[in-house]
C-alpha cells in the first residue's frame, strides 16, 4: 500500500505563489481579466465540504472569479452543471463528484472541451483520470482516516481495561457508515477496525448502520441499539463527526457520557474534527476524531487551479507533490484527541 | 322459467345497506312496448332497485330476468351490453369534457384504433336533432345549465337504442316544453317496442305518460296497476298508505309590508341577470318562473351575495345591504337553499347533526367553543319538525334518500332564523308526502312574516303556493304578476319575452 504524501505542506501552502498574483492587482482589474474557475460541489451544505468551499472563496477573493455550483447530491444535476460551465467557457474546472462512477462520462465531456480539471475530495479511479492529460486529483488518502481512528481506538482500549465492560477481552462495537457507495466511507469502515485488530484489539461488530452522514439518523439508531444491547456496547465508531454527534447525543440522553464524574462512558470516535465535535471532546463527551484539513485542501486546489489557468504546469512553484499515481496530491489527516 | 310476456322481471329483490333495508322483496315486471311508472316516497327504494338492475349495486337476493333469461350484472358495462340504458337521478357527467365525449363515453366509435371524432359529432348531431336539443356537441358540458345537462343525459340514454330504458327522475329540472318533447320521444320508443321504466314525483306526468304503475313503500312492493285504473289520489294513497286529500295546503299567509327591494340588479360576470328589479313583502311567497337558463339561479345567488353584482342595490327594510358573501347574507337574515343538493348542499360524509348545525355555528359558540347540548337539541328539532327518516342523528347524511337529505338542509336554514328565504327548486326529487310538508313549511314561514322566494320548474307548484310570480326571461325580468292573474300559458309567454 502507498503511504500518504505527508511531506506536502498543507495549511501553509502559500497561495501567493500562485501566478494570479503576477496579474494586475485585484482592485483595479476588471472582472474579465481574472481567470474564471468553475466549481462543482457535490452537496453545498455538507459540513466538511462547506469548510473547503468557504476557504476556496476566501483564497479566490480578488484573484479569480469562482462560479460555484451545488450538485445537490445528484450526479445528473452535476452533469448538467458541467455542461453549462463548459458552455460558459471557464478556464479551469474544479469538480467534487457526487458519484465517482460517472467520472468517465464527466472526464469525456471536459476533455472534449479541452478544459483543465481538478477533481477533489471524492476520488475517481486513477485509470479514468489518466484518460485525460489535464485531469488531476486533490484529496486525502481515504484509508488513512480509518487507520488513524483504529490507532486511537487501540490506544484507548489498551490504556483503560474498564472499557471492556463485560470483561470478555473483545471490543463489542457499533459502526455508523456514511453513504453506502462512498469510497471514503467504505475505507473508513474497513480500516478503522482492521487497524485496531492489527494493533491487537479483538473486535466484534454488534451493529452497522448506514446513516448518510446524518446526525438525526444516527441518533435514532443509537437510541434503539442502546435499549437492545445496553451496556454490551463498548465502542462507537462513526465515519464522520455528524453521525458521531448523533450517537453522543443519544448516549447522553440515556445517561452515558454526561461528562460528569463517575458517569458511564461509551467511547465515540468520528472523523472531520468539526467544531462541535471538538467541543464535545473537550467536555469529555466524545473521545476522538480525525482532523481533515479543509482549508489546506482548498489552498492546494486553488494553487493548482491558478497555475493551470495561467498556462503553467499544475505544480509549478508550489511544494505539493504527486503521489505514486503521478496525478494526485494528498492532504494528510491528523489525529485529534482534545 | 317464464314466458316472454315480460321484457324484464325483477323478483324478490333484496338489498341491505348498513342500517337500512333498502329493498325488501321488491318486484317489478315490465312489458315490451310500455311505459312503466315506478312510484314511491323518498327512500322507498326506487333508485336502489334500478341500480341493482343496472349493475351499480349488486342485490343481496332475488332474481332478474330479461326476456325470460336469467341475468346478473356485476357492472353497468354488462347492463349496457344487454340492452339496458339508464338516466340516473344524479347527473353523472364529466364537466370538464365536451358533450360528445360524454355521450360516447364507454363506446367511442373507432376507426383503425383511433377514436373517430367525425362520427361522434355526426351521430351526436343526429340524436340532438331528433330530440330538438340545440347545443353545439363540442361545447364543454359544464357550461350548460342543469336542465340542458339533463337533456343531454336523456339523449345519451336514448342513443344506446336499448330494449329497456330507465329514466330516474329525468324531468326534475326540465321545463314544460322540454318535458313535452321528452314525452314525444318516449312515445316513439314505446312504439318501437322498448320498455321504459319511468320514475318521477310529478303526478301529472305519471298519468299522462305511463301504461302501468308500480308503487313501492319502504323497499317493498305495494302493487302494480294499469294507469287507466288509477288517479293521483289513488297513487298517493298507495305510496303513503293513507289518504292525502289535497296536494297543496290552504294558503293562510297574508303579505304585508315590503321587506326586500331589489333595484336594477346586474351581475358582474355576464351572461347573467341584467337590470332586475322586484319587491318581496313580509309574509309573501314570491315564485320565480322561467325557461332553462333564464338565470333564476343567478338571481338568487346574486341576492344572497355568492355571485357579485356590478350595478343595482339590495335593500332590506329600507336600508341597503351589502351581502359580500354568505356570512354577511346569513347575518342580514337571508337563507339560500341551493339547486344541486349533492354538489352544494350536503356534507355527504358527515352526520345529520353536522349537516343541521353547520350554518348556525355562531349560535352555539362562546369564544369559538361549541355548546354540544344546544347543538343536539337543535338537531333533534330538525329531525322532528322536518320529519326526517333516519336511524339516528349520527347517521351520515349521504345514506339518506334524496328527499330526506333535502329536509335536513331546509332544517339547517330554518335554524338560522332567516327573514328572507331563497329556495331554489326546494321540492326537486321530493315525494308528494314530503312535498306537502314542505309547502306547509313555506306557508308557515310566510305566516310568521318571513319573505320567501321560490324558484321552481313545476308550474303547478308555483301556481299552488305563491302569492305572486316573477318570470325571468334570458336574464331579464319579464314581469311580476299576482298568481290569480296567471296560468301556465301566460307564464310561458312571459318566459319567451326576451328570447
Amino acid at each position, binding site marked *: 500500500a502507498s503511504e500518504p504524501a505527508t511531506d506536502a505542506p498543507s495549511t501553509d501552502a502559500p497561495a501567493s505563489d500562485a501566478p494570479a498574483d503576477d496579474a494586475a492587482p485585484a482592485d483595479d482589474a476588471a472582472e474579465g481579466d481574472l481567470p474564471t474557475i468553475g466549481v462543482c460541489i457535490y452537496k*453545498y*451544505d*455538507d*459540513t466538511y*465540504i*462547506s*469548510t*473547503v*468551499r*468557504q476557504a476556496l*472563496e*476566501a483564497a479566490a477573493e480578488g484573484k479569480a472569479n469562482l462560479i460555484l455550483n451545488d450538485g445537490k447530491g445528484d450526479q445528473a444535476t452535476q452533469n448538467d452543471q458541467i455542461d453549462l460551465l463548459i458552455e460558459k467557457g471557464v478556464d479551469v474546472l474544479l469538480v467534487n463528484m457526487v458519484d465517482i462512477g460517472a467520472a468517465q462520462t464527466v472526464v469525456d465531456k471536459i476533455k472534449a472541451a479541452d478544459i483543465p480539471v481538478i477533481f477533489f475530495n471524492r476520488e475517481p479511479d486513477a485509470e479514468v483520470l489518466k484518460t485525460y492529460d489535464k485531469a488531476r486529483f486533490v484529496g486525502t488518502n481515504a484509508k488513512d482516516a480509518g487507520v488513524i481512528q483504529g490507532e486511537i481506538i487501540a490506544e484507548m482500549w489498551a490504556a483503560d481495561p474498564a472499557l471492556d465492560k463485560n470483561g470478555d477481552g473483545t471490543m463489542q462495537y457499533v459502526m455508523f457508515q456514511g453513504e453506502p457507495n462512498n469510497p471514503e466511507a467504505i475505507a473508513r469502515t474497513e480500516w478503522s477496525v482492521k487497524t485496531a485488530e492489527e494493533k491487537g484489539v479483538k473486535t466484534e461488530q454488534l*451493529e452497522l*448502520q448506514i446513516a448518510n452522514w446524518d*446526525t*438525526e439518523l444516527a*441518533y*435514532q439508531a443509537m*437510541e*434503539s441499539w442502546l*435499549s*437492545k444491547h445496553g451496556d454490551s456496547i463498548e465502542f462507537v465508531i462513526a465515519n464522520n463527526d455528524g453521525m458521531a*454527534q*448523533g450517537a*453522543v*447525543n443519544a448516549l*447522553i*440522553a440515556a445517561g452515558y457520557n454526561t461528562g460528569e464524574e463517575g458517569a458511564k462512558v461509551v467511547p465515540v470516535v468520528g472523523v472531520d474534527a*468539526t*467544531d*462541535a465535535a471538538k*467541543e*464535545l471532546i473537550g467536555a469529555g463527551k466524545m473521545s476522538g476524531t480525525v482532523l481533515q484539513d479543509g482549508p489546506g485542501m482548498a489552498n492546494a486546489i486553488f494553487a493548482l487551479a491558478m497555475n493551470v489557468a495561467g498556462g503553467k504546469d499544475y505544480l509549478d512553484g508550489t511544494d505539493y507533490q504527486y503521489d505514486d499515481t503521478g496525478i494526485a496530491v494528498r492532504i494528510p489527516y491528523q489525529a485529534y484527541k482534545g | 322459467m317464464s314466458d316472454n310476456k315480460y321484457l324484464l322481471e325483477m323478483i324478490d329483490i333484496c338489498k341491505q*345497506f*348498513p342500517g337500512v333495508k333498502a329493498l325488501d322483496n321488491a318486484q317489478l315486471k315490465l312489458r315490451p312496448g310500455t311505459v312503466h311508472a315506478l312510484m314511491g316516497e323518498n327512500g322507498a327504494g326506487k333508485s336502489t332497485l334500478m341500480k341493482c338492475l343496472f349493475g351499480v*349495486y*349488486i342485490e343481496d337476493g332475488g332474481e332478474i330476468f330479461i326476456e325470460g333469461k336469467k341475468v346478473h350484472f356485476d357492472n353497468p358495462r354488462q347492463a349496457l351490453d344487454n340492452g339496458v340504458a339508464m338516466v340516473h337521478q344524479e347527473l353523472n357527467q364529466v364537466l370538464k369534457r365536451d358533450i360528445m365525449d360524454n355521450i360516447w363515453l364507454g363506446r367511442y366509435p373507432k376507426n383503425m384504433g383511433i377514436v373517430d371524432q367525425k362520427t361522434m359529432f355526426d351521430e351526436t348531431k343526429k340524436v340532438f336533432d331528433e330530440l330538438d336539443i340545440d347545443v353545439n356537441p363540442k361545447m364543454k358540458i359544464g357550461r350548460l345549465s342543469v336542465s340542458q345537462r339533463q337533456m343531454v343525459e336523456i339523449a345519451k340514454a336514448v342513443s344506446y337504442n336499448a330494449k329497456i330504458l330507465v329514466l330516474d327522475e329525468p324531468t326534475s329540472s326540465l321545463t314544460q316544453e322540454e318535458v313535452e318533447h321528452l314525452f314525444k320521444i318516449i312515445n316513439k320508443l314505446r312504439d318501437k317496442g322498448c320498455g321504459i321504466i319511468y320514475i318521477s314525483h310529478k303526478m301529472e306526468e305519471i298519468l299522462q305518460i305511463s301504461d302501468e304503475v308500480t308503487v313501492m313503500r319502504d323497499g317493498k312492493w305495494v302493487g302494480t296497476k294499469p294507469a287507466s285504473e288509477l288517479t293521483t289520489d289513488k297513487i298517493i294513497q298507495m305510496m303513503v298508505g293513507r289518504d292525502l286529500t289535497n296536494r297543496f295546503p290552504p294558503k293562510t299567509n297574508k303579505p304585508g309590508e315590503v321587506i326586500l327591494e331589489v333595484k336594477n340588479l346586474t351581475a358582474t360576470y355576464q351572461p347573467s341577470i341584467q337590470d332586475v328589479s322586484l319587491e318581496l313583502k313580509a309574509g309573501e311567497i314570491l315564485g320565480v318562473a322561467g325557461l332553462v337558463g333564464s338565470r333564476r339561479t343567478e338571481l338568487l345567488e346574486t341576492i344572497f351575495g*355568492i355571485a357579485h353584482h356590478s350595478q343595482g342595490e339590495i335593500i332590506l327594510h329600507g336600508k341597503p345591504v351589502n351581502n359580500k358573501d*354568505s*356570512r354577511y347574507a346569513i347575518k342580514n337574515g337571508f337563507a*339560500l337553499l*341551493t339547486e344541486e343538493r349533492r*354538489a*352544494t*348542499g*350536503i*356534507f*355527504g*360524509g*358527515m352526520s345529520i347533526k*353536522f349537516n343541521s*348545525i*353547520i350554518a348556525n*355555528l355562531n349560535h*352555539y*359558540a362562546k369564544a*369559538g*367553543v*361549541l355548546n*354540544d347540548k344546544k347543538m343536539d337539541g337543535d338537531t333533534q328539532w330538525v329531525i322532528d319538525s322536518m320529519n326526517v327518516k333516519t336511524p339516528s342523528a349520527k347517521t351520515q347524511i349521504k345514506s339518506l334518500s334524496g328527499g330526506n337529505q333535502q329536509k335536513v338542509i331546509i332544517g339547517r336554514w330554518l335554524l338560522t332564523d332567516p327573514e328572507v328565504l331563497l329556495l331554489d327548486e326546494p321540492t326537486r326529487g321530493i315525494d308528494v308526502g314530503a312535498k306537502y310538508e314542505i309547502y306547509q313549511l313555506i306557508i308557515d314561514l310566510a305566516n310568521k312574516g318571513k319573505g320567501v322566494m321560490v324558484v321552481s320548474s313545476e308550474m303547478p307548484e308555483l301556481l299552488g303556493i305563491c302569492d305572486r310570480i316573477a318570470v325571468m326571461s334570458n336574464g331579464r325580468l319579464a314581469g311580476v304578476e299576482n298568481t290569480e292573474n296567471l296560468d301556465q300559458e301566460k307564464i310561458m309567454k312571459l318566459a319567451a319575452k326576451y328570447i
Partner: protein
Amino acid sequence: MDKTIDKKNIGEWLLNYSLYIVLGLMIVVVIIVDPRFLTLKNITNILSQASTRGILALGVAGLIVLQGTDLSAGRILGVTAIVSASLLQSTTYASRMYPDLPALPLIVPMVVAVIIGAVFGLINGFGVAKLHLHAFIITLGTQLIAYGVSCIYIDRPPLGAQPIANFDERYTKFVTGSIKFGSVQIPYLIFYLAIVAVVMWFIWNKTTLGKNMFAIGGNPEAAAVSGVNIVKNIMIIFLISGILYGLAGFLEAGRVGSATSNTGINYELDAISACVVGGVSFSGGVGTIPGVLIGTVILQFINYGLNFIGVNAYLQYIIKGLIIILAVSIDVRKYIAKK
C-alpha cells in the same frame, strides 16, 4: 342467521380496530423474534421518538382534512430547529453562532421558532385560500424556500455549513429530561405530545374552527354557501400547522442535540403517512386525533422495532413500504362503498 350477524359484527369490529390490530401484531412479531423487547424503556423510547413527529403529524392532519397536504412541514421544522438551536448554544462554547448573545430564557427561542413556523404556515394558507393553489404546489414552493433560508442562515464564513450544536443545559434538560414515576422514567417529550394532542383534539371537536375545517374539507362549495368563512378558516388551520411545526422544530433540535440544514428532511412524508395510516383521508373531511397518534406510533414502531430485531437496513425500507400499504389497505375497507 345469528351466526352470519356475528360474523359480520366481528368483521366490522376487526375493521374498526384494524390499526390497533396491526400494531399489536407487529409488537407480537418483534417480541417473538427478540423477547428482550418487552421493557418499559422501549415503549417510552418509541413514544418519545414519536413525540416531535407526532406534533408534526398533528399539524399536517388538519391540512389533509382540508383536502390538502404539506410538503414543507419537514423543512419548516428544519428552519425553526436551526434558529432555536442558534439562540440556545451554550454560552461557554467558543464557536457558537452568536458569540455575544447572553443566555436567553427558553421561552424566547421557542416563541421565535413558533413565529417563524406561523409565518410559513400563513404563506401556505395564503397560497391555498387566496391564490387558489393546490396545497401540493404552494408547499412545494415553501419547502424550497424554507430550505434555502435554512442554508443561508446556517452557512456563514469562515466555516460554512456547520451543524449548530452544544446547547445550553437548560434547553437540553427541558427537552430530554424525564419524570420518575416509581421505577419508570417518563420523558417530558411524551407529555409535550400529550398536551398538544389534547389541545388539538379540543380544537377539532369542540370549536367552531374544527367544525368549519371539516365542512370545508368535506364539501367546500356547501361550506361557502353555509356562511363558513373559507379563507379565514383555511388560513387559521395552516397557521396552526405552522405553529406546531415551529414547536416541533424547537423540540427536535434539543432532542437530537444539534441542527443542520438537513434537519427535518423528508419528515413530511412520515407525517403524512402517519396521518393516512391513522385514517385521515385524502379526499377530505375525515380524520381523528387518536387516529393520527396511533398512525405516528405505528410508523415509529416500524423504524424502532425493525432496528431492534436487527433487520437489514435495506430490507427495512421494503418492509416499511409493505406495512404502510397493508395498514392503509385495511383501513380504507371501512370506507369502500358496498356494491
